[in-house]
């Protein structure tokens, strides 16, 4: 959990690994940028069938949140830098691995990515590769769910950003809008997003760590939440005097 103090924004990260997996096997990532305008946040979901996908998901989300990639047009410029960073991080680790370690890493990692930048002038921009979902809430009602708004549209074959130069880079989707005090943004990786689309995204506004854990336990038990890494970022837009 994380709470902002300078910007009039309350932000939280909720994350749970897939049931049955160790916490270190969690392969989603979430990041919230520095406490200044524009506020940036991102979630990413590393593909299970690739190795070092958590490392890749972390580089992507940190890249958006810290390096200030708000415009989707900048992605072609920064992606090679992120790929080089992944290669540096991974090269050191695979030196002593058996035959499959280096060969698997040579294929690279893949991840979905959703990033948002929220500006002081009450506008926002977002971009997405894959099936993470951005919810914009106003008066506790869903204004928009993007780029997927139907829980039946998750097909397990989302577009993915590659950590190696070589595989095709999917064209990111982009959107933008305006926000008001009292609005909230929710960024969710696919399993959590599908669950929220089936239920009520506004429930996230009431989450603390315990409630999130209880809600996800219960939803996994009934099949409403697919057993997968599940990550949610909540950004609540407050009036300036409420920010403390």
């Amino acid at each position, binding site marked *: 959990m994380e709470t902002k103090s300078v910007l009039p924004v309350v932000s939280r990260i909720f994350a749970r690994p*897939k049931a*049955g997996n160790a916490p270190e*096997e969690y392969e989603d990532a979430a990041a919230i940028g520095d406490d200044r305008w524009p506020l940036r946040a991102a979630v990413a979901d590393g593909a*299970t*069938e690739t*190795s*070092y996908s958590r490392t890749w998901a972390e580089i992507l989300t940190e890249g958006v949140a810290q390096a200030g990639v708000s415009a989707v047009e900048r992605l072609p410029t920064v992606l090679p830098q992120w790929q080089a960073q992944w290669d540096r991080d991974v090269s050191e*680790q695979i030196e002593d691995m*058996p*035959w*499959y*370690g280096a*060969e*698997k890493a040579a*294929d690279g990692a893949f991840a979905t990515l959703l990033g948002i930048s929220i500006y002081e002038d009450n506008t926002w921009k977002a971009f997405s590769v894959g099936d993470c979902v951005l919810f914009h809430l106003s008066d506790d009602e869903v204004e928009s769910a993007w780029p997927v708004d139907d829980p039946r549209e998750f097909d*397990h074959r989302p577009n993915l950003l590659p950590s190696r130069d070589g595989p095709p880079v999917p064209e990111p989707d982009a959107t933008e809008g305006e926000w008001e005090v009292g609005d909230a943004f929710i960024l969710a990786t696919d399993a959590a997003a599908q669950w929220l689309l089936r239920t009520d995204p506004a429930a996230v506004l009431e989450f603390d760590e315990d409630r999130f854990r209880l809600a996800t336990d219960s939803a996994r038990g009934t099949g409403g939440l697919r*057993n*997968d890494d599940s990550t949610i970022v909540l950004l609540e837009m407050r009036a300036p005097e409420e920010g403390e």
Partner: protein
Amino acid sequence: MAYSAEISRQQPTAFLFLLDQSASMQDAFGGAEQKGDAAPSKARVLADTVNKLLQNLVLRCAKEEGVRDYFHVGVLGYGDRVQPLVTPAESLDSGTGLVPISHLAERPKRMEERVQRVDDGDGGTREQRVKSPVWFDPHAKNGTPMCQALDLATQHVRDWIDRHTGSFPPVVMNVTDGEATDGDPLRYAQKLRSYATDDGETLLFNVHLSESEAPAVELPTHRDELPRNAKYADDLFEMSSTLPFTMRSAAENEGYTVDLDTRGFMFNADPVALVKFLEIGTRPSNLR
């Protein structure tokens, strides 16, 4: 819905390959481009293809911390006798004849160095040395004891299912170039397929390797797609399970048109079709 069980380390699935090692496997493919001594034997192509497939299965399960046991794997050869071609270390023998994929990863018979040409990123190519694991070598001798092989596969599958009742059921892939010389394999195939997990019956797929120049029949839906008067082809068709949903998707990705009645069967397959077929058959569902 059947054939939808999530595959995880707690709930792995199993692949069992039955490989014809009869004397005729020494011959080249019917439609081979190279003729005479230069053409690789069917036994050589099959061994190379399955070694490569095992390598890919290991890589699918490889993560930064090691190889996750999403799959248990067995390879049985049948020719002068029926024999396992991959075995676990004695201390790790699960008693099912199937080897957790992490054990397979650690125990190739040898690593073979090959030179391949790769893109140099500058519009040209350069030579790169790659090491490939080899678990077994080609072998071709005597008859085609397919019934015995199916019988041993049935024992393995039954023992494995006893320990994995909730799993995606085992997938058995039989690759042959000739008729069984030890009885009627249909009866054995039906018995093998009758063993089921909670997620569905054991799947049996069959690939017949080409001896003639006749075109391949790939993933047929109806018996009348097969050559006429070939009882042998009819039997293999009858022995083969229909493709479950995820494998139909994999087949469509490979460019095939499929429906609910499409069989996991290829007749007169060439090496390219064999590779595509094994890829489709080893796509049970998403790993979690």
